[in-house]
């Protein structure tokens, strides 16, 4: 409903905007005896009008007086010039010519010579731009410096400037003899070229589903990878910022989610080179691509566009094209920005005063469940009251409790369970742990590039440095990146080129590796969640500056408080996890023009990637149980050597109205992986962290090892693009692939695709409507793609190495056992995809609307089919499951204002519905469950009914542990109430059910661009509606144990005798079984985020020329300007197990989001 309203508002605005501005604008002027020049300036200031005239022809020194009220511009000008000057109004542009001299001009100057320069937004001259006298065929082109000169016949109104990929501009000639034009890159020009697999084509001719963004969308944003800058920009492409840490990963899913056990990440292809990287939560492989080097990003969303990539394409393909050298004078561009980051979306946890109240109430509840009358038929039950004073509680427990023996032993201090110790209120601290563990982060980004060339050789070189210091201590990311592209025309027919793109990254992440065996409660040790649980009554540091111990062996005076043992984040910060990645991408290509119509191109791509990870944990890093820890360090080195060879033959021709592009190609690739890992213990000192210092290797076999593997893929492919008069389109492609990953029976696969398009607007019957709808295309397609995103050697049964000691000495004997089931029929997953869509452009392309519908059926899904363990194995990988994704995408772009004040809005909305159609057996994930006829990875658990209201409620509803005698599970009013789903009167695991799905109802994005004179403003927003998140690690938001801090969200809503409608269970020192209350931890992840606001100012040409600069622009950017969400955690986009499709929507602790404010400058020389 809201959307409809929004759309209709836009439409109304559009209609209003196309009305002539001059008719609608009424001005009031009261000017006494001033120069005409000043009067015109006054009008310019008051309105959007601007005047074009030559002072030589018009006497603007003449003084006039004007006194008008609410008059149109025509009337005002008529008054002002008293018929001496002729004027013409073109919307906001007004041209003044002398009446007297027009005649003379027409007599003596049949031709008018106009000169000028055409440049792009950055001041770079545009060579080869068309300059045409509007409405004629007279024209010229700009030279290599962007200069032109044209003779214009008398009576010509205006010149039109155009260039591929830029927005055409029409300038009224009036009396001007020099016209300098700045062409803006077109937002959605139909003549724009888009990159498709193994080729390019005109956007106008696209018959498949391709989204694209240009470098415009990436610039000025201080992000480490391009995906962060464009989330929400493309319909059907869901980019979620699952880990907000510096260098952290974004999850990218195109048109739903495509697999259960294989990769769900799209294929990334950079300048024709298909990469081997997928999703990585901690270390985004896309970081090594400097966003500043990217010219455009194209996303192949449907199988009819992506099938050319065969077995790698079922999750869609993202084509990244980097900037290339341009023929012309050398241009040097510099971009520098610097900014700071602060935490946003802080979790509201209790302050000291409220914490003490909750602390006491948790102990009262613990006291009450020991009431000796509970569970009996005593009519007077219960005996004990919420209001019993502490002394009575202790007395009652000493007499009746199951813990009476312990209560009587002063050493056990069991009274801490049921009363508040006095010293607790004496704590001098009121710590805000979140503030204490976050700081102001910094982002610096420097880019330098140079491009230029002659007719035969062109170059582009660039270097970048990006540095981010996170808002959480010890986190940070740094990148050095370089790129060189050289293209040379060796002869008329032969072209060669070399691209080099080395990059070096340093990433520092939180070391959350645990050595104290408490891995079952990671939230109590994770430095991202501990600040939420740590009690405000405890300090962060000891007086001597060392981190205060939050562990079980609390060596402090307040031991009696009985708080949960945690690890102080500052102890974790002492540990390190540093990762370095060096990577080089190299491409060598040659292109031969065999005939004018036939081209052969050969590309050899190569990647070498080497990563090193160093982990160190010093003795001073306390655990939950000990003040010191055993020191350990590890070193892991991985490398990948990967090459890819492509040979492509392209034939392009037109016969009359038939245009054909045919392509055939062949590719082969091989990747080799190596890993070395060493883990050692016992460093004599903490200062030196290299492993030569360490003394112990615990397990010689597993703690020092190397691994090797390799994979290969060959494919042959072909494609025909055909169109008839730009009206009827046909595209067909086919690819045949063989992958080393599959079984011997299923090595080869064939992936065909077809798409059709019809440009309705070019039909003769449509011409009456053409005024309103200038372009209308209907397109649709079908295709098959495959998914080979699984590990190597899955089809082969291998022997795992073990060992066993056969004697009394420690001599080991080698042992082997089968560790995998062979499956020679293991094959790719097949994704069959239908889509139908329409693109409509209204009112001379002022309004552009695209609507896509897609239906993806993924069959033969690789699935770990459960095996009876009598085979020795639990499951084996085979092709059995079936899943469907379908949905809609809407994209609406409107050019609301197009003259001097420009305003463009682009809005998109996308939704998909996922359903598992066939799966041999339900699959449990981490808090999730996948079963037939439901979306993948539904959240699963007990159904939370809040708290028991009163005794009547407890007695009439099944309670926990009715079959056990566990005191922990006694229920009283305020205890958690869970639905008895199967109705058998017993609460147990069979009452678990599906509680939600992480998939959103829909996602949307909107970008507004404003330009006025030198200013530009971009506001980019995105949002998600629906989608459930299970805050598995945040138990205290639904159940407090009086030992950790809780949120106000919970504090204000839990049951107490004075708040019997509270929807959460009462806190209880005797914790509830956490599984039983997990149903209350599911929240909607809906949010709206103003993701980027960029405000820029480009210095006027006149100043630039004085400074001898091509272009200069200052800008400010705010990232995450304003996030609106009801989700109580840190990050509503969290997906802690994003790498595992069967475990969606889990919050196991998120890196807090931050707002980044940065300032930058662009210079072009």
């Amino acid at each position, binding site marked *: 409903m809201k959307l409809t309203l929004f759309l209709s508002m836009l439409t109304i605005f559009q209609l209003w905007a196309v009305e002539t501005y001059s008719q609608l604008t009424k001005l009031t002027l009261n000017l006494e005896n001033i120069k005409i020049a000043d009067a015109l300036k006054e009008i310019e200031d008051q309105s959007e009008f601007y005047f074009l005239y030559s002072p030589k022809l018009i006497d603007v020194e003449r003084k006039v007086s004007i006194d008008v009220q609410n008059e149109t511009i025509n009337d005002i000008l008529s008054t002002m010039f008293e018929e001496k000057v002729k004027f013409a109004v073109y919307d906001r542009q007004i041209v003044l010519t002398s009446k007297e001299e027009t005649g003379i001009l027409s007599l003596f100057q049949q031709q008018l010579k106009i000169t000028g320069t055409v440049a792009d937004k950055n001041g770079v001259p545009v060579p080869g731009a068309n300059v045409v006298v509007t409405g004629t065929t007279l024209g010229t082109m700009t030279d290599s410096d962007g200069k032109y000169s044209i003779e214009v016949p008398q009576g010509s109104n205006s010149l039109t400037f155009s260039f591929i990929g830029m927005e055409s501009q029409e300038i009224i000639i009036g009396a001007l003899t020099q016209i300098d034009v700045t062409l803006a890159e077109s937002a959605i020009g139909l003549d724009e070229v888009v990159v498709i697999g193994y080729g390019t084509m005109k956007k106008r001719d696209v018959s498949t589903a391709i989204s694209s963004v240009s470098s415009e969308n990436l610039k000025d944003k201080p992000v480490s990878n391009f995906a962060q800058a464009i989330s929400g920009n493309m319909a059907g492409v869901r980019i979620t910022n699952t880990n907000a840490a510096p260098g952290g990963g974004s999850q990218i899913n195109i048109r739903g989610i495509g697999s259960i056990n294989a990769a769900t990440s799209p294929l990334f292809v950079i300048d024709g080179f298909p990469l081997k990287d997928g999703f990585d939560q901690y270390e985004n492989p896309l970081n090594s691509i400097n966003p500043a080097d990217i010219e455009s990003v194209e996303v192949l969303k449907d199988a009819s566009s992506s099938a050319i990539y065969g077995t790698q394409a079922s999750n869609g393909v993202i084509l990244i094209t980097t900037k290339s050298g341009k023929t012309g004078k050398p241009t040097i561009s510099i971009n520098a920005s610097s900014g700071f980051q602060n935490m946003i979306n802080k979790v509201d946890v209790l302050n000291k005063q409220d914490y003490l109240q909750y602390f006491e109430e948790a102990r009262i509840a613990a006291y009450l469940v020991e009431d000796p009358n509970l569970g009996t038929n005593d009519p007077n039950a219960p005996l004990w009251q919420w209001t019993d004073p502490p002394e009575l509680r202790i007395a009652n427990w000493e007499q009746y409790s*199951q813990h009476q023996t*312990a209560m009587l032993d002063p*050493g056990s201090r069991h009274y801490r369970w049921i009363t508040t110790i006095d010293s607790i209120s004496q704590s001098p601290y009121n710590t805000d742990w979140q503030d204490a563990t976050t700081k102001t982060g910094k982002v610096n980004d420097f880019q330098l590039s140079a491009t230029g060339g002659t007719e035969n050789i062109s170059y582009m070189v660039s270097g970048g440095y990006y540095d981010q210091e996170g808002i959480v201590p010890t986190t940070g990311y740094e990148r050095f990146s370089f790129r060189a592209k050289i293209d040379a025309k060796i002869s008329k027919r032969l072209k060669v080129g070399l691209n080099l793109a080395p990059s070096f990254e340093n990433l520092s992440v939180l070391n959350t590796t645990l050595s*104290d*065996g408490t891995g*079952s409660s990671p939230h109590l040790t994770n430095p991202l969640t501990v600040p939420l649980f740590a009690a405000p009554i405890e300090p962060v540091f000891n007086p001597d500056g060392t981190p205060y111990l939050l562990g079980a062996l609390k060596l402090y005076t307040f031991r009696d408080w009985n708080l949960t043992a945690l690890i102080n984040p500052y102890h974790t910060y002492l540990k390190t996890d540093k990762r370095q990645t060096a990577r080089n991408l190299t491409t060598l290509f040659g292109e*031969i023009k065999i005939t004018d119509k036939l081209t052969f191109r050969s590309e050899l791509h190569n990647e070498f990637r080497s990563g090193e990870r160093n982990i160190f944990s010093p003795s001073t890093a306390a655990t939950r149980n000990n003040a010191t820890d*055993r020191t350990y360090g590890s070193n892991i080195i991985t490398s990948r050597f990967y090459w890819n060879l492509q*040979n492509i033959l392209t034939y392009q021709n037109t016969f009359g109205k038939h245009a054909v592009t045919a392509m055939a190609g*062949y590719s082969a690739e091989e990747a080799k992986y190596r890993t070395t890992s060493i883990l050692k213990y016992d460093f004599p000192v903490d200062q030196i962290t290299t492993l030569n210092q360490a003394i112990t290797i*615990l397990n010689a*076999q597993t703690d020092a090892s*190397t691994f*090797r*593997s*390799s*994979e290969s893929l*060959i494919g*042959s492919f072909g494609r025909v693009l055909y169109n008839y008069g730009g009206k009827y389109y046909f595209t067909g492609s086919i690819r045949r692939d*063989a*992958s*080393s990953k599959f079984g*011997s029976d299923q*090595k080869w696969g064939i992936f065909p695709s077809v798409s059709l398009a019809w440009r309705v607007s070019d039909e003769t019957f449509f011409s009456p409507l053409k005024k309103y709808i200038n372009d209308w295309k209907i397109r649709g397609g079908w295709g098959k793609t495959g998914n080979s995103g699984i590990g*190597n*050697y899955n089809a*082969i*049964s*291998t*022997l795992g*190495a073990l*060992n*066993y*000691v*056969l*004697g*009394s*000495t420690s001599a*080991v*004997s080698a*042992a*082997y*056992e*089968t*560790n995998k089931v062979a*499956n020679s029929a293991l094959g790719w997953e097949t994704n069959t995809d239908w889509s139908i869509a329409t693109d409509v452009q209204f009112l001379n392309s002022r309004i552009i609307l695209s609507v896509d519908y897609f239906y993806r059926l993924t069959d033969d899904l690789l699935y770990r089919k459960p*095996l*009876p*363990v*009598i*085979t*020795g194995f639990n499951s*084996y990988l085979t092709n059995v499951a079936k899943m469907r994704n379908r949905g809609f995408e809407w994209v609406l772009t409107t050019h609301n204002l197009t003259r001097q004040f420009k305003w463009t809005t682009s809005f998109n909305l996308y939704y998909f519905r996922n359903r598992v159609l066939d799966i041999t*057996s339900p699959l449990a994930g981490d808090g999730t469950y996948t079963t037939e006829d439901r979306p993948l990875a539904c959240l699963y658990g007990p159904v939370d009914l809040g708290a028991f209201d009163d005794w009547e409620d407890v007695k009439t509803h099944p309670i926990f542990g009715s*079959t*056990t*005698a566990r005191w*922990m599970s006694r229920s009283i009013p305020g205890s958690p109430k869970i639905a008895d789903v199967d109705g058998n009167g017993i609460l*147990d695991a*069979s009452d678990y059910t599906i509680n939600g799905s992480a998939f959103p109802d829909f996602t949307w994005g909107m970008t507004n661009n404003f330009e006025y004179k030198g200013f530009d403003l971009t506001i980019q927003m995105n949002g998600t509606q629906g989608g459930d998140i299970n805050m598995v690690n945040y138990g205290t938001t639904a159940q407090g144990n009086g030992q950790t801090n809780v949120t106000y969200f919970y504090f204000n809503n839990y049951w107490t005798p004075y708040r019997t409608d509270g929807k959460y269970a009462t806190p209880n020192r005797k914790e509830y079984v956490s599984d039983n209350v997990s149903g209350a931890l599911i929240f909607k992840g809906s949010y709206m985020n103003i993701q980027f606001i960029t405000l820029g100012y480009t210095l006027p040409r006149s100043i630039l020329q004085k400074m001898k600069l091509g272009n200069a622009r200052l800008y400010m950017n705010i990232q995450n300007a304003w996030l609106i969400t009801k989700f109580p955690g840190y990050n509503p986009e969290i997906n802690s197990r994003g790498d595992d499709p069967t475990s969606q929507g889990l919050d196991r602790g998120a890196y807090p989001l931050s707002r980044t404010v940065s300032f930058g400058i662009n210079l072009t020389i």
Partner: protein
Amino acid sequence: MKKYIALLAVTALFFACSEKFVDRQPEDNLSIGNYFTNAQEIKSGLVGCYQKLQTIYGSFSSQLPYTVEIMSDDLKDLHWNNIFHLFIKTNENSQTVIWTNGYKMIVNCNNIIAAIDKYKAKDVTEEALIKAYRGEACFLRALSYFNLVRFYGDVPKVTAPLDDPNKAFGIGRTPGDDIYNSVIIPDLEFAIANCYNKGNIELNGEEARATSGAALTILGKVYLTMNNPSKAAETLKKLIVDKAGGNYSLFSNFQNFFLPANKFNSESVFEVNYNAAAGQASDFFRWMCPDIGVLLCARRYREQVAVQHNLMREFVNSGETIRYTSTVDSGIVPAASPPLQPWARKLTPAPADVATYAVIAGCDYNYPITRYADALLMYAEALMLLNQKSDALPYINMVRTRAGVPVLTDPDALTIDVILHERRMELAFEGHRYFDLVRTGKAVEKISYALLTRIDLDNQIFRSGPIEEYQLLLPIPVDEIEKDPTLTQNEGY
């Protein structure tokens, strides 16, 4: 134009090498097709079967030694909420690990037995060697089936490699008797005939391998379990009287039998071997004596186990000292306040030594699957059941003498209860008690007594009634039934 043709020719080369190019074998792992082709490789497959012993009898709490102790009346869960301790067994928490690990060992044995059957020995010497390997694999397979049958009753019978994993569906359960007669007994008989005897030179430095003596002892246990005392007596006679498996004798000092320094001594019959220096550490002490583990170790387990006062009462009442003090630790540790619960110290290092192991993964203590004392008591039991009570007395007295308790003199006083008492004193915490109670039909009575009677400090009751007969078998893992509905569930679950 020539050069273009040359270029196209080079390109064509890549089309040629396609099929082989995408056929890849792992570089850091053996694949099964090209292995087990000589005696040494076969041995490594056999060692792969032995290695599974560490998994099955592993120290982690959900596995066999823990389960079988907590289900008996010897050990208890400190929190009184363990479902095995309290015999609250439901389908939801059916014990899967024992099933899974048991079959993993069976599958490894099946694979290596099949490999041996395909292999042609080079000469007679190798023939004998290969047969011994096969005998050991048969022994391990029989041992695993014996455990499974005792825990689960009827179980699926798999004795050959499953080439097509889909054939594993629909096998169903084979009656326990059939498993005994068609798998366990033939396997053990093959092992008796082909394994080396204790002390054979082939076993020098490899004493942890199964011997014909080990096979005889287990076969004796199998027959007792099958309630066939005459066959049991016949089998054990071969071991004890005929010395058909080599020379066995009781180790002189009960306390020291378990020390790592005394591995594979004269009494040792079959042990799960551990060696911390080789990265194969035992950490029974982490769950067997959890309190001391918490005090002194870096790691702790959630399951906290303590000795049942029922057992300690029996030690005290019978005047045991040597076996009592070396089996149970009083629980007094100066550093602990309040005093700790008494813990099982038989297979664990002394408190003073625990700290040594705290920083490393564990210690060297072996887990004795069976020892000569077990064989002697079984032989006595078999003879007693055959009413040859006077013949039985010397064997039980050998055990008693070593333990420093008075010998029994009255043959008529020798009853099953006396034998069970002796076994409990001698073999506590070695995984025998629960199965002894079950096979003698005393389980319901004795275990219910321990759960429902207040003894000394065990003064709280967490069960409302006696356990039931059906609960003596574990439920078949529900996950497995879901995968293959031809598996039926045990009665009562």
